[in-house]
């Protein structure tokens, strides 16, 4: 086998399992709410806060709940991150920037083009200017927003993954959560730990599941909501280091160690002078089946630029997450439907050229809250949410850069030239939409990895540093095709940064408990489904 088209081995989204008639058997508790928000990330929590504030100002009682699959707030949240504070200011206008959970303003920044042994300083592209922005940990942002939401009376349920969409006709009625306390074979664990799924039903459900949201995908497919281009993704692998050398600037790099037919780059951000977040992001439309983002990050750390910074330091956390990169043309045609809205990364509100998504996520949550509030109040349509987003800076920003990421489908150099032209023309060049294939449709060439990298940390150690202590005996939550060829198994083993997949003599081995919910193989191979609440990573300052 010398070529792989991943889509050929990818099981279909199990829609028949994901869409469930409300009232179906099998649930334990049933809870009725006014608004149910799925996912306690920046989008979901901003939505909850704005809704609670609107209700309070209006003197109405709203029963709002946020479901989160992580055991505690923020533990499944990962981002760079440099944050544009704009949506924070709109959500909480009484607070100053210094009240927000940021680590510090960006004062200096540098962009480099790397070669194996040296670096070339590039002028910072206009889209990447970060003056007025702040370095932050998304985990900390989420915990802070969660506390604000709770103060306003929002119910936060952590440790409850939404597994199925409850529907009535074409309307979304709520969600059913994943069961907990089951053994590998699906029977309750000894000692009576088993817990049946719960049904949460609401007048409006907001899907804010984050990147590659399962129920958002299911809803779009079920309701046949198209997008101009399929959504495309990147995988980011990130480490947090305590360093002995201080860092005073935000750094981005392009080039090495990525091959020229892959799109991506690195980031190095100081949370504190001696607490540094660094990571590598690679578009999942890369062509070499042996490319491995985790391994590339380990190589990247050997570059003189980074090696000097990390010398004598200690890696204290590790994590991985995908990023929806398709931009404007990959947004679902509508992000609202019958009793449902899609927010944040689940809808695809990310601007790759500026490397930003958090403030768009929050802004979408704010707009959704306003539309939901009116809908509950006077029955006005939820399409108001789409109207608000389309008329806002969110849509305008994504439209301006609509083709920039897409141009890189042609490789780093051609892409770079086209992106530069787009910047110069304010997005008008080339005056047409770039057509994209879904990542899984992109053909990969089979190759052998160029030498084993011994430096850096192994995937097993990485998973340990993600805080992942998933019970080893939970039922597998990953759906892979039967009998995948060994080249494909090897491909999966490179795609997954957490060592979930291994190519063995007897075929594909799946170490399901290792999974850190990054969703990379959900994009390119085996499907991800939710598992027992509280499973997966326990990020602290990612």
């Amino acid at each position, binding site marked *: 086998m010398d070529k792989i088209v991943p889509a050929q081995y990818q099981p279909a989204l199990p829609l028949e399992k994901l869409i469930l008639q409300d009232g179906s058997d099998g649930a334990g508790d049933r809870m009725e709410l006014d608004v149910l928000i799925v996912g306690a990330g920046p989008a979901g929590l901003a939505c909850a806060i704005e809704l609670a504030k609107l209700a309070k100002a209006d003197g109405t009682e709203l029963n709002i709940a946020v479901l989160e699959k992580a055991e505690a707030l923020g533990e499944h949240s990962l981002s760079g991150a440099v944050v544009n504070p704009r949506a924070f200011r709109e959500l909480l206008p009484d607070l100053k920037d210094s009240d927000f959970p940021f680590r510090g303003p960006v004062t200096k920044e540098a962009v480099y083009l790397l070669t194996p042994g040296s670096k070339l300083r590039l002028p910072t592209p206009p889209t990447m200017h970060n003056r007025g922005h702040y370095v932050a940990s998304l985990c900390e942002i989420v915990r802070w927003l969660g506390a604000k939401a709770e103060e306003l009376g929002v119910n936060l349920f952590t440790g409850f993954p939404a597994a199925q969409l409850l529907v009535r006709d074409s309307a979304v009625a709520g969600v059913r959560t994943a069961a907990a306390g089951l053994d590998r074979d699906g029977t309750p664990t000894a000692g009576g730990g088993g817990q049946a799924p719960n049904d949460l039903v609401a007048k409006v459900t907001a899907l804010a599941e984050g990147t590659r949201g399962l129920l958002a995908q299911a809803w779009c497919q079920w309701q046949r909501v198209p997008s101009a281009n399929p959504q495309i993704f990147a995988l980011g692998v990130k480490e947090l280091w305590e360093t002995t050398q201080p860092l005073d600037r935000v750094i981005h790099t392009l080039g090495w160690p990525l091959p020229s037919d892959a799109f991506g780059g690195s980031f190095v951000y100081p949370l504190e002078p001696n607490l540094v977040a660094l990571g590598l992001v690679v578009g999942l439309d890369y062509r070499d089946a042996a490319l491995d983002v985790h391994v590339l990050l380990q190589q990247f750390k050997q570059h003189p630029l980074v090696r000097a910074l990390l010398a004598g330091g200690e890696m204290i956390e590790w994590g991985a997450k995908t990023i929806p990169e398709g931009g404007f043309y990959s947004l679902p045609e509508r992000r609202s439907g019958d009793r449902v809205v899609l927010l944040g990364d689940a809808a695809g509100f990310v601007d790759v050229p500026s490397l930003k998504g958090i403030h768009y996520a929050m802004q979408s949550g704010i707009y959704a809250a306003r539309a939901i509030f009116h809908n509950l109040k006077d029955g006005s349509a939820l399409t108001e949410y789409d109207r608000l987003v389309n008329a806002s800076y969110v849509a305008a920003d994504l439209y301006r850069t609509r083709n920039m990421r897409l141009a890189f489908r042609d490789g780093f150099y051609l892409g770079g030239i086209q992106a530069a032209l787009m910047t110069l023309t304010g997005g008008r060049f080339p005056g047409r939409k770039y057509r994209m294939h879904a990542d899984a449709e992109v053909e990969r060439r089979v190759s052998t990895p160029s030498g084993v990298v*011994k430096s850096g940390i*192994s995937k*097993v*150690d990485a*998973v*340990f*540093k993600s805080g992942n*202590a*998933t*019970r*080893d*005996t939970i039922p597998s939550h990953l759906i892979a095709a039967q009998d995948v060829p060994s080249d494909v198994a090897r491909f999966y083993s490179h795609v997954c940064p957490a060592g979930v997949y291994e190519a063995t003599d007897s075929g594909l*081995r799946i*170490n399901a*408990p290792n999974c850190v919910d990054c969703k990379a193989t959900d994009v390119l191979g085996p499907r991800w489904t939710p598992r027992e609440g509280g499973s997966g990573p326990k990020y602290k300052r990612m």
Partner: protein
Amino acid sequence: MTTLAVLEQRDGTLRKISHEVVTAAQRLGGAVEAVVCATGPVQGADQLGKFGADKVVTLTNPAFARYAPEACAQALAERAKQGGYRTIVFGATATGKDLAPRVAAQLGVGVAEDLTDLAADGGGLVVTRPVYAGKALLKVKVAAQPAVVSLRPNVFTPVERPKAGTAETVAVNVAAGRVTVREIKAAPAGTLDVAEAQIIISGGRGLKEPANFKVLEELARAFGGQAAVGASRAVVDAGWRAHADQVGQTGKTVSPSLYIAVGISGAIQHLAGMRTSKVIVAINKDKDAPIFKVADYGVVGDLFEIVPKLTEEIRKLHG
């Protein structure tokens, strides 16, 4: 300044921790008075002079046939009040952990528990105790009068410092107490838990297939029932061994006196589960395996040759 060393007996025989307690007490300088609660003479008590006990006191009462928490506590607290000891040393065994705070409370103080080190410091003590699962050591100044402490077992290696110890037997008049031990059930045979075992032999993927664990089971048997067989997460995930045997991450954290890692490469999550073992031996064919970084003793090579040879040697030792 006299230190009171509280011994432990079961069925009239002194337990090993007693030597450790006397050894540690003796380190504080001054006289050491060893005390044990029993129904009559305790086998092994006469040997304590060898470890530095100046005096061995046997407190007798019919209630002491089995561990009698309240009766022992009362007897010891009364003895302590009369004796004016500066320090009272217990072993942090299941019994010692139960008894020490009872005695301490009756003396109006708390216990410095589970010590790995202690030293006299002016009028008081400075002690060290592992906290946060052994991830840090807490150094504490103890000003309590008397200072009541308990020692982590297997840390204070008994040292022989012979003294011409005297012996005394005192029948004490104490109530049997409200809490009484009805019986001691033997732990279910053949199921030595990895969390309890003093010796653990763990296997990883280097074993190649589940059936090969019999090599490790034979080695465990050679230790005469003191050893348990553990496993790395990789082989547990593969279904070769039960999850109860897993060491590390979501498995168990262990700290036996001897940990033998066979065919285990040493992922951080495994190391985190066993790095507080007293002595670590690694047997692995890859000399660069991370396990060798934490191992005290490493043997590089084919485990299927090395382990049987080791089994043979251990069998010789245990006759």
